Every structure is written in structure tokens, then in C-alpha cells.
């Protein structure tokens, strides 16, 4: 009697490996080279494929899953144009350290390198913006490569990993045993904080009169918010968040000075300018945070805790460089830090806050001249009040993003999602889809400008097909507002390439079966937002805002903190 060995197809082995990694949602778009994998999906009901309308959106949706769940999100595309369409979303994940696994079909191994139909050297193109990349040229390697890809994406400093799967490997039929899925290159944990460093930090903290703690994306990604909060409350030091640190700790915390950097609050930036000690936790001193480096926080010693050593001493030299995971380092520092009232220091911050509140247009009543359009800041503040700062907010890129960061009071952990490093317009709608799949019971808002909305507007099709319940708040100033602001301030108000002739967005949404309404006066704002909140299913609220509104304060790119502008 012949003994029949069980066999398996490469594509099925691939899907089975994805299931083992706990994958539920894959966002993608099919095509010739990836078809074998799609063909295997019905055998794996645990895998739910969401067909998007453009591969870029698949990469952003995968990011939405990753940002909301802390686990790798997955996107999948065919070879050639499918793969190249993923690139922006992957580059974005790289700069924001978001764990995603991108799967691309590839032409058969026999024709790789011959400019075959729909061949693109996607690995070659993505090397600078991926953490690791694999081309599968042996079906036996599938289980190990998939396992390693998920492991690397989500270990240490997180980031995107790509797996390129040639069609013949996906179609190969092999005996279903003898796989070795051992991870070849385990990542070593950082060395952690040393005794000398604790002692040095202790001395600096003990003598500091004007300290400030920086809360970065790392605090959210490592789940160190509890440890950081204990450190802050024991020491009574004020803190400020980076754009991605927002929502790590409650926005109403009494020690919170608001966001730092180019569009940060007056109180945070003035505190940084005058600080004698900066304790930077899980952040990388991006140029939007520092402005002119030579003049940055000149009087401050810097204690920098980072788990990626290439970020330490990159832009700002650390007095105490601590190459460590956040939690253990913060715990050690908490043990040795003392409590101080910092009376004068907090009084200084309060004075700066009052100063800004006195000139903030949002506090000036809303209308300028005879215009009745609501201000962006007013809209966001209203949304924040109505939702008690507890909803998920996914923003796009532009003025509306900075207004959302500044005027929504994030009171719940990890509820703020946006593209910071790459600043990719088109991020919000697809990313919000991923957030919604991850948190189906929670409300998810998209905050988007008219320019950004049209960069992935085709995803209204996905929202329609899948009944994805996201609320879209479109702040329509009929301009590429953020660029207009720069033109206004630095280019003699020459508005070149920034006015936008827009479609009827409400009619467009309705073509996709999505309800919505347009708001032009402040008095209609609250009822519209309430209707959006009550509505079952996706809803579009378009708010017509003034094109000449500016997000202030602003530290112009490459300038000193003392050059901060507070009015136009």
C-alpha cells in the first residue's frame, strides 16, 4: 500500500502561517501575482480580507490596526504597480515606527530580473524604508519567514517589514511537514539603565529648579504610561508631549503643559526654552520639535531614555544617555527622584498660559469681521467637549491636524492617530478604517481637510461596501491651508498651487450611500455633531471654514524658540 504523504500549497502554508501569528484583518487588492494567496483565503475563515480601492489605503489601514492594537497590521498587494502603490504607507510606517507586515506578490522566480510583466524590484525600492525585507524563494522557508517578519516588525523599535512572494512559490506543492520556524536572529534587549546613570540622573534632578519631562511616542508603544505617571506625580515635574506622545497621559493632567514644538503651546515651548533639565522619554528630537539645534534648550542638561541607540546623541547631545527600555529606566529614576513644589516654575507656565488664552482667537468670540464661519479650533474644542475627550481621533495632515492636536483634550490612552514623521496627506480615512476594525465598539472620528480628503477619497467605496461606521469631520477651507499659511507668512502671500476647486462633498458621499450635512455657521455646529454621533453608520460633517485662518503659535522651521510667532 502506497503511503500518501499529506501535501500543502505554498499559498496555503502562507495563510496558515498568518493565522498562527494571530492575523485577523488583511487590507489589500488582488492581481496576477498574488492570486494564488487570494485563492487560498476561503480555506482560512480566520483571515478576513478587506478589499480597499487603492493599495496606499491598504498600507494606511494596516497602520490603523497596528496603532490601535499595538500588534502588526497587514496589507497585501500584487506585484508591480500593486506593490509600488503601497510604498507611501510603508515609508510612513517606517518614520513613525509602526509595525506593519506588507505582503506583495512577485513574478515567478524563473523570470525575476528579466523585466517580466508587472515585475518591480520592490525590495530594492523599499530597503531604505523597511526594517527588514524577505523574498521567499523556497516554500519550506514560508513558516519561518512569516514568523520572523511579525517578530521583527514588533520587537525593539517597531517598523514595517515586507515579504515578497513569487507566484511559483505560492503555487508550489510540497509535503506538509519538516518545517523549521525558528527565528534566526533574535533581537537582544537594550542593556538598561546603569547604577552610575541612576546616580547621575539623581544629582541632576535634585539640583534642578526648572525641569521638564518629554513624553514621546515610545511611552505609548511600550505601555509605560503608568510608570511615567508615577514618576511625574512623585516628582511633581511638569511635562509636555510630542505630537505622537499625545494621549499617552490624560490631557487634563494638572502637570501637563501641552504639546511641544513648531505648533506647540506657548507654555510648553517657553518652558523648554528656559528649562535647566530635560528628561526625554521615548522620543527622538525631530526637527519639528527642536527648531534651530544650536540654540535649542541651551541651559538644559538632557537625560535621554531611548531603546534605539542611533537616536541618542543624534540631534541633541545627552548629558545622561540611557540606552534602555522605558519601563525599567523610569522605575529606577522614580526611586531616586524627590518631590519639589516648583512654585516659581509653575507660576511661569501659568503666566504663559494666561497670555496665550488672552490672545487665542478661539477665545475671542468666533466671527472675524462679518464672517460667521466657525474657526477650526472652535470646531475641535466643541467636538472634544461633546465627546468628553474620550473618542478615537484620526487626523490627516495640515492645519486641521495641528488644531486637532492642540484643541482636542485626549483623556483616554492611545486615542490619537496621525502621520507625524512623513506627514502623508491621505492618511486619515484609511487609517480610521483600521482603527475601527480594531475597536468596533468605540466611536472613531476622522478629522480631515479638503485637500487631504481627496487623496484617498476612493475609500468611501470601501466604507460603503463594508459598512464601516466612521464619522468624518471635514474642515473645508477650499485651500491647502497649511501651505497657504506658509505662503502667507514667508512667500509674500503668493498663493500658488493652493486654492482648491472642490466638488460637492455631501453629494459625493451620498453617491456612496453615506449621509452627511454641511455646516456654515457656528450655531449649526453642535446639532450637526450630535446627529453624526447618533447616526448609525458612516457620516460626513463638512464644515466650511475661513481660508485665512492660521494655526498659532508657530516656531518657523529652523528657527529659535525665541522666534515663536503668536499672531500673524
Amino acid at each position: 500500500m502506497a503511503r500518501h504523504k499529506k501535501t500543502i500549497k505554498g499559498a496555503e502554508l502562507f495563510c496558515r502561517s498568518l493565522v498562527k501569528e494571530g492575523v485577523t484583518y488583511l487590507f489589500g487588492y488582488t492581481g496576477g501575482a498574488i492570486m494564488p494567496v487570494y485563492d487560498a483565503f476561503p480555506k482560512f475563515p480566520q483571515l478576513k480580507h478587506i478589499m480597499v480601492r487603492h493599495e496606499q489605503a491598504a498600507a494606511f489601514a494596516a497602520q490603523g490596526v497596528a496603532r490601535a492594537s499595538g500588534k502588526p497590521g497587514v496589507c497585501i498587494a500584487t506585484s508591480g504597480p500593486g506593490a509600488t502603490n503601497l510604498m507611501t504607507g510603508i515609508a510612513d510606517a517606517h518614520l513613525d515606527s509602526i509595525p506593519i507586515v506588507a505582503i506583495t506578490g512577485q513574478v515567478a522566480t524563473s523570470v525575476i530580473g528579466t523585466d517580466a510583466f508587472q515585475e518591480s524590484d520592490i525590495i530594492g525600492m523599499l530597503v531604505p524604508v523597511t526594517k527588514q525585507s524577505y523574498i521567499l524563494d523556497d516554500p519550506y522557508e514560508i513558516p519561518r519567514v512569516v514568523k520572523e517578519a511579525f517578530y521583527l516588525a514588533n520587537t525593539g523599535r517597531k517598523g514595517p517589514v515586507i515579504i515578497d512572494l513569487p507566484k511559483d512559490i505560492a503555487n508550489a506543492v510540497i509535503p506538509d511537514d519538516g518545517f523549521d520556524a525558528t527565528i534566526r536572529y533574535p533581537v537582544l534587549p537594550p542593556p538598561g539603565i546603569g547604577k552610575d546613570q541612576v546616580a547621575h540622573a539623581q544629582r541632576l534632578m535634585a539640583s534642578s529648579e526648572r525641569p521638564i519631562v518629554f513624553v514621546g511616542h515610545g511611552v505609548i508603544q511600550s505601555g509605560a504610561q503608568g510608570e511615567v505617571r508615577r514618576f511625574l506625580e512623585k516628582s511633581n515635574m511638569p511635562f509636555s508631549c510630542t505630537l505622537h506622545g499625545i494621549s499617552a497621559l490624560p490631557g487634563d493632567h494638572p502637570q501637563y503643559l501641552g504639546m511641544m514644538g513648531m505648533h506647540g503651546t506657548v507654555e510648553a515651548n517657553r518652558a523648554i526654552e528656559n528649562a535647566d533639565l530635560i528628561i526625554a522619554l521615548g522620543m527622538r528630537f525631530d526637527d519639528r520639535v527642536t527648531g534651530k539645534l544650536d540654540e535649542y534648550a541651551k541651559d538644559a542638561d538632557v537625560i535621554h531614555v531611548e531603546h534605539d541607540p542611533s537616536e541618542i546623541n543624534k540631534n541633541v547631545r545627552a548629558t545622561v544617555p540611557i540606552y534602555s527600555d522605558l519601563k525599567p529606566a523610569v522605575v529606577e529614576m522614580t526611586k531616586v527622584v524627590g518631590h519639589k513644589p516648583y512654585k516659581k516654575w509653575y507660576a511661569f507656565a501659568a503666566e504663559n498660559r494666561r497670555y496665550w488664552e488672552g490672545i487665542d482667537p478661539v477665545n475671542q468670540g468666533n466671527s472675524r469681521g462679518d464672517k460667521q464661519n466657525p474657526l477650526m479650533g472652535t470646531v475641535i474644542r466643541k467636538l472634544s467637549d461633546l465627546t468628553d475627550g474620550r473618542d478615537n481621533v484620526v487626523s490627516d495632515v495640515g492645519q486641521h491636524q495641528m488644531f486637532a492636536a492642540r484643541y482636542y483634550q485626549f483623556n483616554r490612552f492611545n486615542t490619537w492617530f496621525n502621520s507625524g514623521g512623513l506627514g502623508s496627506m491621505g492618511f486619515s480615512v484609511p487609517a480610521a478604517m483600521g482603527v475601527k476594525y480594531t475597536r468596533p465598539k468605540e466611536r472613531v472620528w476622522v478629522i480631515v481637510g479638503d485637500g487631504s480628503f481627496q487623496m484617498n477619497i476612493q475609500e468611501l467605496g470601501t466604507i460603503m461596501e463594508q459598512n464601516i461606521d466612521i464619522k468624518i469631520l471635514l474642515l473645508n477651507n477650499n485651500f491647502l491651508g497649511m501651505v497657504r499659511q506658509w505662503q502667507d507668512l514667508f512667500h509674500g502671500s503668493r498663493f500658488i498651487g493652493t486654492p482648491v476647486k472642490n466638488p460637492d462633498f455631501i453629494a459625493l458621499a451620498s453617491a456612496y450611500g453615506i449621509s452627511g450635512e454641511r455646516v456654515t455657521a457656528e450655531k449649526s455646529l453642535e446639532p450637526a455633531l450630535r446627529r453624526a454621533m447618533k447616526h448609525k453608520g458612516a457620516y460626513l460633517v463638512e464644515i466650511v471654514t475661513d481660508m485665512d485662518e492660521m494655526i498659532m503659535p508657530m516656531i518657523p522651521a529652523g528657527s529659535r524658540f525665541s522666534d515663536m510667532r503668536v499672531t500673524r
Partner: protein
Amino acid sequence: MRQKKLHTILAFAHNQPGVLYKLLSLIRKKRYNVETITVGHTHVEGISRMTISFSHGEGNKIEQIVQQIAKITADFYEQEAVMFYLLSEKVFIRHFGGKK
């Protein structure tokens, strides 16, 4: 013309397609110029040795690229201990442990 500073890096990595490309891509991204490059086998099977010298304008940013190259090559290391350091100036020495 600005005085260019020459740096030499010795790195060990797995002998696999794409490793050298990754290193050079990083050097190119920073707009440093490769002056010489030698790649060959080591006595350990499957491990290659690369000596790369490159020049760039300012001397103070070298630490970052060293750390970044260390990150790349680290992905490929599993041998008991592999050294990685700068030959021209002793900025940084690091050992990558194996599985233990």
C-alpha cells in the same frame, strides 16, 4: 573645498543577497562617498567581512551612522560574538551576543 574626513568601518554580516546593498543604501542616503570597499569570506562559514571606507564633510555625525549600521548588521548576526567597530577612530565598539 571642504576638508573631507575618511572613516573606515569593519563589519561582519551573513553572506546573503542584499546585505551589502542595505549598508551602501544607508551610506548613500546620508550622502557620504564610498572611497574603497572590500568584501570577502571569513573563517566562519556563512559570515562575510566587509571593510568600507567613506568620506564626508563633518566629523561629528559619524556616531549615528555607526549605530545605524550596527542595527542593520545586528539583524544578521547569530554567531557567538561578532565585533563591529571603526578602524580609523575608536568611536564605538560593540559585541553582539548569540542566542545565549
